[in-house]
């Protein structure tokens, strides 16, 4: 299956809502509006010709310099045609919200919890949106660019010894 066929089909079903990001390095990448994301995902999964049944991954990216600060990225794989697609949705900060994909794939559950844990993306309608990897009482979203890698509360690490 050709990428152009896939794109035509998507744009035919969702007129003027799907934009391909040109010059993608490896996978075909499409940009979808926040309002349509679940419809697009459901279409990709259930369409008889496409059959993107395997949700490979959900994650997010933080771009503090952009107006829409957060991007949620879905990697989906059609096992029958052996073709992958990357779906991106850009969201406004600082409290990004997006409908949950657990209604399409059950496997989205933990991936979305992880994304929430790291970036604070609120997946509306998620059955159990809690922190998954970090401690429950953490009050920051550590993968956001403004938070440091190292624990800021350390006392044993004197800058003097590290030439800083």
């Amino acid at each position, binding site marked *: 299956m050709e990428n152009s066929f896939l794109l035509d089909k998507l744009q035919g079903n969702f007129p003027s809502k799907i934009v391909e990001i040109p010059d993608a390095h490896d996978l075909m990448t499409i940009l979808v509006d926040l309002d349509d994301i679940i419809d697009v995902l459901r279409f990709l999964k259930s369409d008889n010709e496409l059959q993107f049944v395997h949700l490979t991954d959900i994650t997010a990216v933080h771009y503090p310099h952009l107006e829409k600060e957060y991007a949620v990225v879905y990697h989906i794989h059609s096992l029958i045609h052996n073709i992958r697609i990357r779906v991106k949705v850009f969201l406004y900060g600082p409290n990004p919200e997006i409908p949950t994909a657990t209604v399409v794939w059950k496997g989205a559950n933990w991936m979305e919890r992880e994304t929430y844990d790291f970036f604070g993306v609120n997946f509306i309608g998620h059955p159990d949106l809690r922190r998954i990897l970090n401690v429950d009482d953490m009050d920051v979203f550590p993968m956001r660019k403004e938070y440091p*890698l*190292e624990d800021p509360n350390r006392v044993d690490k004197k800058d003097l010894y590290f030439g800083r």
Partner: protein
Amino acid sequence: MSDIKLAEAPPGVEGAGFFATSLDKAIGLARANSLWPLPFATSCCGIEFMATMGSTYDLARFGAERPSFSPRQADMLLVMGTIAKKMAPVLRQVYVQMAEPRWVIAVGACASSGGIFDTYSVLQGIDEIIPVDVYVPGCPPRPEAILDGVLRLQDIVKNETLNRRNTPEYKALLEKYGIHTNK
């Protein structure tokens, strides 16, 4: 002739039909050669510990035949792998549950100092929450290194005085970690 090697007797006074040594040394000998390990394995070092327990290296040769998974019946806590902050209270509780005398080996860079993970989520060495007797370097240490760590601990155990656990210094050490003894 038997292949079985006996542990070396501690220094003492020997004569016809008797052997005398201090109680400290006799008990130290017994303790050192039947350490019951409690493997607290979280990550990569745990896999190397698996090799240490396995057929090629065989930790059981040194009297640690029975890994005790209950902290109540263990002498030697082997902390292997990264301890995240989420895990820290669990580790501390396991240590508190162990009966005296208890010893701790920090196996690997992560348990000793946080290793390469200088991050917000990782405890920078288990000695922040519990006292440690032996540190084994390596990321992960080779099985030989883990065995060496156990041998070093055996030296410590052999030479420990019986009343060490009752000394004010030891109690102060535990107090420093916020572990209260009722004795």
